[in-house]
Every structure is written in structure tokens, then in C-alpha cells.
């Protein structure tokens, strides 16, 4: 405990007594992140916590990650033998959860009168990448994007569209997103004097394809048809092996007939559910590998 207050005292001292350290005087309503005074945990939690410049009792929370909020939607159309897509993505920074509660609770119990605030980025952009594709978009926000879901839309090239429309892509990381946001704050310059600066932070997240899991999100705008454009057909031997393994691993009581009927697909879904896989009930190589691993124990 004494260390905590010792460092607080050090920070206060640095801010109030150093000859070169002069506050840029942000008012209470205009508090800035003090970039050189982060509050750290050896455990590196879900959020990064900073002191506010000039007030060691005020803490800024910045997210360490982002998550999909409803995944994405793909609208596509065929033209000149190619398939062009338009992607709409919805994402939200991770600013809540047990880790965040634990951190804020601890600081409230440790620092009398501790207050928490969220920085509002002065700029933010999404960078969408996949299969040689890279696009940066800067959405317009009506509220703090660190606290709410945001959506972006963009056209994507044929190669990436085709990947997303193939059944196997449900098992692959097809798209990754970098969320970049700029926050105003104070840092010490080379002569240890405070200066107002803007720092860009980057957070990332990945998305699998999912035309066989959530087919309604993959729409052919010319015909209204939804789902994948190609499914994979597996031979009967592979289906038989999967049925055998499901009987062994999950006591599924399936007939080993090499036909992936409704009972087999239901058993596959059950196994996928407890193996944290997309629950599409489809036979796949990845399913086979997972079942083999499970059978090995």
C-alpha cells in the first residue's frame, strides 16, 4: 500500500514542485490523459489505466481489445464472371467485464475519492485486411466510439469475397481489423516539460467467415439467395470415420453408414458446441482433426 501512495506523492511532487514542470492547465471539465503516468498491473488487464494530468484521483480507462458485435454482413453480386462484395462490420471496444470491475473496485478501495473517466478519441479509423486486401475507413461518430458499437461498410475485391462465400471459411480467419484511435494527453518532452500531444493506439480483432453458420448474413443482392456459394462434399469414408469418432468421444449412438444425415449433423453440432467451434453441423477436415485429438484424450 505504501508504494502506491509513495508513487502518487512522487507524481504530485513532480507536477507541483519541478521547476520545468508547468501544467498546461486543462480545467476539470477538460482533463487529459497523463501518458507518462499509467497505472499498471503485472497482469496486464483488459484495459489500460492512466492518471489524469493534474489529478491523481482521476483515472482514464482505455480498452486493450475490441470484439465483434454481431459479426459482419456480406452483400454480393456477380458481374463479368467475378463476384464483388460489400462488407458491413460492427465492432465494439472491450470496456466492461470482470477484469475491469476488479481494477476499478481495487482503485476505489485504495484511492479515496477515485473517479473514472473515458477518453473520447479525437480521431479513429478502422483498417480492414484480408487476402491481400487493405482498406482504411474513418467513420463518423455521434457518440464516444470507445463506449459504443460502430459499423463500417466497404467494397471488397473478388478474391476475398469468394473466400467468404466458401463453406470452409467458417473455420478460417478470413478478415482482421485494426481499430486505431487517437487520444489527447500530456507527455514529458526531452527536457522533462509537459506538452500536449496526441497518441494513436491500435487494437486488433479477427473474424472467421461464416456463410455456413449464419447464412442469412451472406446475401446475393440479385437473387436474394443467402448462404455459401459452394459447399464441400466429403466422401463416405471420412463421414464414417467421423461417425465412429463421435460414437467413441460423445457416445452419440450413430449408425456408421457414411451418410451425414440429421442425427449425424446434430451430433456434430453438440461436439462443435463443447469444442468452441462454429456450430454448422457440417463435416470438415478441421472437425475430423478435432475429433481425432479428442479421441486421443
Amino acid at each position: 500500500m505504501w508504494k502506491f501512495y509513495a508513487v502518487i506523492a512522487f507524481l504530485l511532487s513532480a507536477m507541483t514542485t519541478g521547476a520545468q514542470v508547468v501544467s498546461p492547465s486543462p480545467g476539470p471539465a477538460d482533463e487529459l490523459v497523463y501518458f507518462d503516468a499509467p497505472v499498471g498491473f503485472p497482469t496486464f488487464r483488459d484495459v489500460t489505466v492512466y492518471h489524469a494530468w493534474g489529478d491523481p484521483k482521476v483515472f482514464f480507462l482505455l480498452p486493450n481489445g475490441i470484439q465483434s458485435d454481431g459479426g459482419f454482413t456480406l452483400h454480393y453480386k456477380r458481374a463479368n464472371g467475378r463476384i464483388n462484395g460489400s462488407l458491413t462490420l460492427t465492432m465494439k471496444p472491450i470496456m466492461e467485464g470482470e477484469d475491469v470491475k476488479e481494477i476499478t473496485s481495487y482503485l476505489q478501495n485504495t484511492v479515496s475519492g477515485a473517479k473514472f473517466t473515458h477518453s473520447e478519441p479525437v480521431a479513429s479509423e478502422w483498417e480492414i485486411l484480408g487476402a491481400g486486401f487493405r482498406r482504411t475507413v474513418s467513420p463518423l461518430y455521434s457518440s464516444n466510439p470507445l463506449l459504443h458499437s460502430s459499423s463500417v461498410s466497404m467494397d471488397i475485391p473478388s478474391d476475398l469475397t469468394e473466400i467468404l462465400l466458401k463453406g470452409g471459411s467458417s473455420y478460417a480467419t478470413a478478415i482482421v481489423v485494426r481499430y486505431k484511435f487517437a487520444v489527447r494527453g500530456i507527455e514529458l518532452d526531452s527536457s522533462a516539460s509537459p506538452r500536449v500531444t496526441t497518441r494513436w493506439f491500435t487494437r486488433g480483432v479477427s473474424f472467421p467467415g461464416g456463410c455456413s453458420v449464419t447464412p442469412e448474413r451472406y446475401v446475393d443482392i440479385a437473387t436474394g439467395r443467402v448462404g455459401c456459394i459452394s459447399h464441400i462434399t466429403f466422401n463416405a469414408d471420412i463421414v464414417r470415420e467421423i461417425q465412429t469418432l463421435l460414437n467413441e468421444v460423445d457416445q452419440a449412438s450413430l449408425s456408421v453408414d457414411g451418410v451425414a444425415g440429421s442425427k449425424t449433423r446434430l451430433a456434430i453440432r453438440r461436439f462443435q458446441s463443447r469444442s468452441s467451434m462454429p456450430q454448422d453441423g457440417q463435416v470438415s477436415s478441421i472437425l475430423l482433426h478435432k475429433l481425432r485429438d479428442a479421441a486421443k484424450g
Partner: protein
Amino acid sequence: MFRRIFALLVALSACNASAADNIVVKQATAEGAAFAFVSVNGNIIAIPLSIRLSPTSETPFILQKQLSQFGTRFVLSGNLTFSLDTDSAKLLSAAKKLELSPEDISAAADLQYKTYIGQWDGDTEKHLKIQVDGGIISAGSSMVVSFSKTFDDGEQLTGFLRNTNALLLLMELRTGFQVRLIQANKDIDEIVAKYFREHTVPPIMPITSVFVSIKEEYPEQVEKNPLYALNAISDVVSRLELKVNEDGNVVYEVPDDITMMGSPETSSRIMDGAVTSLNLDICGNPDRLLLIDLGKTGCDSVKDLLGGQ
């Protein structure tokens, strides 16, 4: 336990190194994770040095066959989510090995980073280093990279996949701390230039590591102005290029004609850091590669894709 390990982090930048001879760099590993511990006048900062791919259930590499009027080609794309390994149990275990008290250790918060993909180029027989990302992260943040490589024929593709060292994820991390300079010193300039001409530069905390070595070798000269020595070393390191050597290791390339720029006589922020890499052996696990056209995984199935070429 939580209270015990809680520590208020003061970034390296808040550490005014008024006596640079108190800078110490130590490294330790624990359960596959590596950490550098940098002590600046008693403040110990832990910097994670291991890259950990996110344990998603998704396959990170996709192989796509493309047919065009010019023939068949294969596109290998990768989408990787990763983070620095900051597991607190590993951190504490590594600190224990060095007999450091966990309560004295803070974690580096903001890190400047650059991420590269090192791709083996069969024509030049060298790794081609391509920067794929860069910016500022907090140590616990998740990061993503994406890349793609096109192969004009199956032979090129299988050669690349067979090479277990063909693909590397490289990350350069830097964080800063403040030093106060006294005055320029030409003797130290010469010592520093000579050192770089004669020694290899360690990829982990190169500035502080070289400083410790030079101080051991030339204690009398360095002690006259240790902070200038630190700054001179920093000046050289900032101009070095990273490359992947013949063995697939990441090294700093030191030019033969190292020259000293002469630092201004003022305070300065030293940015030191580490280079860390991860070998992405695509064929090492059948779950790493999806042949999107066949719906099959693993390099064993590539022959099925090539069969129709």
C-alpha cells in the same frame, strides 16, 4: 494475492536516470515466455519479449487456387491475431529466477512497435522483410497482421511450405526513458564507434546492453560521462537496420563505416527495446492451413490441390 502483486506503474519515461551506471538489464524465461527486466536507478521495468498467437479455433492461413488466362496460380494468405505474452504467473516466475521482488517490478505500459513479416524468397535465398504494422500498444493489447503471397506454380508453393523457416513474424518494441546529458565527449564517441565495429549488437535491449558492456571494458572513460555514452549508443542503434540472417535469426546489421553524429548537449529521451520473433511453421500443425477450394486442412492435402493444376 491480487493486492500483493498490484503495483503502480511509472513508465520508463518518468525515470530520470541521473546516474546511468545504475542501469542493469537482465533476461529470464519461464514456461516459454521471456521477459527483459531493466533496472534504472532501482525502478525495475518488465518488458515482455515473447509473441503469443491468439488461441482461436480458426485456421490462420488460407490457400486459394486461382485460374486465369495466364494459367494457375496459388495465393497463400495469413491473418494472425497475437499479443505479447504477459501472463502474470510467468512474469513472476521469471522474476523469481532473477531473485527480483515482484513488488518492485512495474510493467512497461505504452510500447512503440513495428511488426514485420519475414518471407523466404527462393530466388534471392534471403528473407524478405515487409513491415505490416506499426504504432503504439499497451502490453496487454491484441494485435493483428495480414499478408499474402502469390506462387506462380506448385513447385514454388510446396518449396515454400516445406521450408519450416520460411515465414517469420518479427516485432520491434521500444519504450523510452529520460536521461540528462552533461556535455559531448569525443573519447566516448570513439569508444562507441569502435565497439560497434568489433561486436555484434544484441537484439534484446541493445542500447542498455551495449552500455553495460562498454562500461565494463572502458570503466574510466565511461564513468566520466555515462549519460553521454548512453546517448551515443542510442544514436547508433537508432540508425541500425534489422535483418534476418542465414540461420533465420533476427540481427542488427552494423555498417562498416559507423560514424558518430555528435549529440546535442541537452536532456534526451533514450528509446530502447527488443526484437522478438516467432517462427510460423505453416505445416507444423494441420489446423494452420485451410485449402479453401477443397475444404481440407493441412499441408498433406496440398497435393490434392496441385493434382488439378
